[in-house]
């Protein structure tokens, strides 16, 4: 295999060498979940790939999330279509690799703390069933059969067998490793994109802290920083950071068996409120830790730890799983969801800047949606008819200045 890119597989922290332009079929900006998935499907399509990453593999949002593949928090619509499609990609196209990233089809249990909330859950389940989601109503007295350690006072629940979880950092790293086996693929870490190379409106490459690289296509997979990259092409992609914290417990024997969250979570994901919202989302991991979410607030890229937020999350978790009260929190982390004001991903070619593609804006669903989004994007790029119409996600929907939501 001859490499189109004579680059080392890893990048020492030495000053950049000569800045002679180097070329790849596809340049991917960002080595997170979306960037890695795009690299993998591009390599699978026979394209040579260069990934340019400001930090390290999965060092942004991908290492600060819970690794969810959810259908339970969706209603009929384009995002659900994408979600169901992506489920198929994870479970079929990538089936053989599932253990590499600890894919666990554990199912999700959405719980209600009041009779009203339980009734709302049942209504939602009816609509979701019509839309193709598998969901079972769970009566109050059946809940402990799913979760023996849960608060016995809950009034009802719904079970979603399709909900799954994976370890997103391993997923990103392995997809990049796999891409290398399929096509010439290079990764530049600690390399910041400082500008885009333009020929008229066209985007033909990237300028980086290590020199210039030209590409047949440039994919903006910069996560919550996607708007910065878009601005380099003088186009607007209104992706904004929405901060979330996750608390991590001490390693425990299996205590939480499914992804468990309160019905209010669905409302929170669909909300555009910039203020703080919390709703309990609890799940175990193969490492034994229990991950406790969730919070959402629009505070820019402020990483300052907020005790009021952590306390609120702790209260909600302790209420849902009283057995966790005495357990230790070992650490917590903060991450930034790539939030898009219309709650739809930004996926596909940007006709305002030909040659530039976007893969992002999935807010809190990026891990689950990454495989499907990437496959569709690459199908579109190589001129195949995408398995699912991605025009609802087109970046072209952002006419200049129409989103002043900053």
């Amino acid at each position: 295999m001859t490499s189109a890119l004579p680059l080392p597989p890893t990048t020492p922290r030495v000053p950049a060498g000569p800045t002679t332009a180097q070329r790849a079929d596809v340049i991917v900006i960002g080595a997170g979940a979306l960037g890695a998935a795009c690299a993998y499907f591009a390599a699978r399509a026979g394209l040579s790939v260069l990934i340019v990453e400001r930090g390290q593999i999965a060092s942004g949002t991908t290492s600060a999330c819970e690794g969810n593949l959810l259908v339970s928090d969706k209603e009929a619509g384009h995002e659900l279509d994408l979600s169901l499609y992506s489920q198929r990609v994870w479970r079929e196209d990538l089936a053989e690799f599932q253990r590499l990233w600890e894919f666990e089809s554990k199912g999700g249990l959405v719980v209600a703390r009041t009779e009203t909330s339980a009734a709302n859950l049942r209504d939602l389940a009816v609509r979701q069933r019509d839309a193709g989601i598998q969901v079972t109503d769970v009566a109050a007295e059946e809940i402990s059969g799913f979760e023996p350690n849960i608060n016995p006072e809950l009034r009802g629940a719904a079970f979603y067998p399709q909900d799954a979880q994976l370890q997103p950092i391993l997923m990103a790293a392995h997809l990049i490793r796999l891409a290398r086996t399929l096509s010439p693929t290079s990764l530049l870490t600690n390399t910041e994109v400082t500008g885009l190379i333009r020929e008229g409106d066209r985007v033909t490459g990237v300028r980086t802290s290590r020199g210039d690289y030209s590409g047949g296509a440039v994919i903006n997979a910069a996560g919550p920083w996607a708007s910065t990259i878009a601005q380099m092409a003088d186009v607007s992609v209104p992706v904004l950071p929405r901060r979330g914290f996750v608390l991590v417990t001490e390693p425990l024997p299996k205590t939480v068996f499914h992804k468990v969250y309160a019905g209010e979570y669905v409302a929170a994901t669909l909300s555009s409120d910039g203020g703080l919202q919390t709703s309990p989302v609890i799940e175990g991991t193969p490492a034994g830790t229990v991950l406790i979410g969730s919070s959402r607030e629009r505070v820019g890229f402020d990483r300052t730890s907020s005790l009021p937020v952590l306390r609120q999350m702790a209260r909600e978790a302790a209420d849902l799983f009283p057995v966790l009260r005495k357990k230790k929190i070992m650490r917590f982390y903060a991450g930034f969801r790539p939030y898009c004001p219309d709650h739809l991903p930004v996926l596909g070619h940007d006709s305002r800047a030909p040659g530039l593609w976007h893969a992002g804006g999935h807010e809190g669903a990026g891990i689950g949606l990454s495989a499907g989004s990437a496959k569709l994007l690459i199908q579109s790029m190589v001129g195949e008819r995408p398995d699912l119409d991605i025009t609802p996600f087109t970046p072209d929907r952002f006419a200049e200045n129409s989103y002043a939501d900053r």
Partner: protein
Amino acid sequence: MPTAEPEPAPNTITFDGEPIPARPGQTVGAALTEAGIRSWRETRKNGRPRGLFCGIGVCYDCLLTINGQSNQRACLAPAEDGTSCESGSGEEGLRDGGTDE
């Protein structure tokens, strides 16, 4: 300073129900060590025995259950008379326990 007792009577702690002598001021880890007990929990993955390692509260290897409180550091906890210690870090208290690995 309090007045010295010339020969303080040995305390007794229990380890998995067995009495273990302890001198006043000793830690649980020290009392177990003197009783010839060097490990009191098994690791989650490989079931390897663990006891004192850093000895000063840093490594958390020496976790056990003390007076019903799980995950206590034996190297720090005082072996006061009547202290009850259980091997294992206390994760067994959860229903449907057992590791998933």
